């Protein structure tokens, strides 16, 4: 993996912030885009733009083909059986909402949905909405170092939840869940299994067929792709049975004033004109990731993680949250005596972009007994120099706030 060459592909990394070269360490929130993806979107608008599905002319055939190709590429990326199992949404959040609405139709009073305390709000709030129907939402407890409490999990699964929705990896702590085991445990309890893979697929290989998971959700913008495109994978036989979520154009086959009939998969779940350019750009992002290799990317991140963690441990007054092993390239931390917002502002002054706050995971924050953290997250274009600048920045924070 040639980082120098990879960096060249990302135009934004040449940008200066406050006179310093951008060091982008907020990859868990969203990633930057390589020129290949930017140009794919361009190229679509300059050469193939037309509405999909409907047209009987050449241009529309081109855009329809390109948009379908994007579904096929996605199916291959996660090793789905076929593109009928790939639904494009706006983002992970919409994918999970689709599930909560559509699966929710069939749930009954007192049915249980099980999720966990390390989830992003997107995998909590949609399920909470089902409470109005008398459905119960339970949460698997979390250990002090940010892992799922196995005993509690077993106990909660013993109550036979209808749905078990959990994250592949924590966006706050980097905790990587053993998804194979969790899916099996869920299946054994007869629950539908859903993985929030928004922090997983860009770092770890996934094979949904082998995994036998029912649904997974993730976002293009977190894996080098355009904004406004998310994915919902679902097993064909499940998707066939489910009622649609949003309705309107493109997702129906026949409409009369009395009744409507749904289109075939995956279009049944894609109502209205989709984000065609976004889908087409996403395909190129997937190709880019595949060319570099997810495993290579993961290895690279792990190197940076280990290096930066070790360096940080040398500094007094730093608390790092999360597990020691099985962790993404994410460092969630606090500098004693300094508010996370201030940590991030000082770093920003040197062009280093990290995030601070509760990271859309308030229940986890509460569990950890903190208000927020500062968070640096690495991706394929980050270098050892980036990590060094980050460490230097933290030292500067301590100097400015005189907390030595």
């Amino acid at each position: 993996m040639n980082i120098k060459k990879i960096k060249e592909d990302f135009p934004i990394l040449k940008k200066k912030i406050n006179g310093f070269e951008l060091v982008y360490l907020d990859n868990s929130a969203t990633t930057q885009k390589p020129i290949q993806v930017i140009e794919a979107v361009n190229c679509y608008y300059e050469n193939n733009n037309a509405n999909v599905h409907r047209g009987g002319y050449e241009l529309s055939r081109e855009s329809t083909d390109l948009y379908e190709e994007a579904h096929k590429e996605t199916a291959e990326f996660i090793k789905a059986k076929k593109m009928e199992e790939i639904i494009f949404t706006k983002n992970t959040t919409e994918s999970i909402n689709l599930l909560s609405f559509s699966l929710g139709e069939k749930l009954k009073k007192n049915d249980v949905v099980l999720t966990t305390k390390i989830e992003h709000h997107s995998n909590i709030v949609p399920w909470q909405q089902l409470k109005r129907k008398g459905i119960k939402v339970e949460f698997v407890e979390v250990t002090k170092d940010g892992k799922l409490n196995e005993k509690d999990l077993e106990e909660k699964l013993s109550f036979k939840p209808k749905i078990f929705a959990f994250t592949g990896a924590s966006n706050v702590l980097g905790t990587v869940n053993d998804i194979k085991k969790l899916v099996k445990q869920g299946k054994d309890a007869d629950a539908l299994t859903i993985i929030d893979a928004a922090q997983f697929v860009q770092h770890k290989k996934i094979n949904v067929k082998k995994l036998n998971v029912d649904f997974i959700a993730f976002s293009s913008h977190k894996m080098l792709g355009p904004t406004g495109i998310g994915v919902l994978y679902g097993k064909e036989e499940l998707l066939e049975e489910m009622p649609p979520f949003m309705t309107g154009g493109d997702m129906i086959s026949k409409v009369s004033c009395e009744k409507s009939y749904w289109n075939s998969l995956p279009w049944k779940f894609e109502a209205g004109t989709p984000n065609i350019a976004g889908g087409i750009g996403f395909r190129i992002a997937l190709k880019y990731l595949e060319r570099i290799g997810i495993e290579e990317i993961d290895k690279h991140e792990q190197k940076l993680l280990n290096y930066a963690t070790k360096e940080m441990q040398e500094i007094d007054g730093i608390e790092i949250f999360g597990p020691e092993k099985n962790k993404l390239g994410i460092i969630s931390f606090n500098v004693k005596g300094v508010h996370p917002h201030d940590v991030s502002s000082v770093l920003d002054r040197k062009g280093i972009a990290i995030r601070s706050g509760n990271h859309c995971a308030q229940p986890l924050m509460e569990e950890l007994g903190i208000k927020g953290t500062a968070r640096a997250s690495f991706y394929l274009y980050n270098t050892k120099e980036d990590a060094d600048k980050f460490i230097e920045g933290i030292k500067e924070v301590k100097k400015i706030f005189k907390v030595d």
Partner: protein
Amino acid sequence: MNEIYSELILDLYKNPLNYGELKNFNIKAEGGNPSCGDLVIFTIKIENNKVKDIKFKGHGCAISTASSSLLTEKVLGKTIKEIKKISDKELNEMLGGIIQTRIKCMTLGKRVLDKAIEEYKKSGKNKIKVTIRI
């Protein structure tokens, strides 16, 4: 010198003036931005439409803490009307200038204070306790 936080901000963050809670108050206002987690609680004693005493507490970043603290200094002895007139710009200047990305941190305390005084007036200037979400 660093060019990001004025010495005043750093000082007020470490040793905030008027930190604490009044026992004898007409207004108690708790406000914050739940999504960023910052929280400020003002207790204010008003007499003859003037701020006779004021304290704040809570938790927040350097900028919101310093800003709230400075605000308590600034409004002491002022009339309700005068408080309303303090502009964000003025606040910014008093603090020695803050960076653009953090304007919301700076204005948190001021927004809570303004809302609290509005509620106080609405209540017919009776003793009130209010919770404000920004």
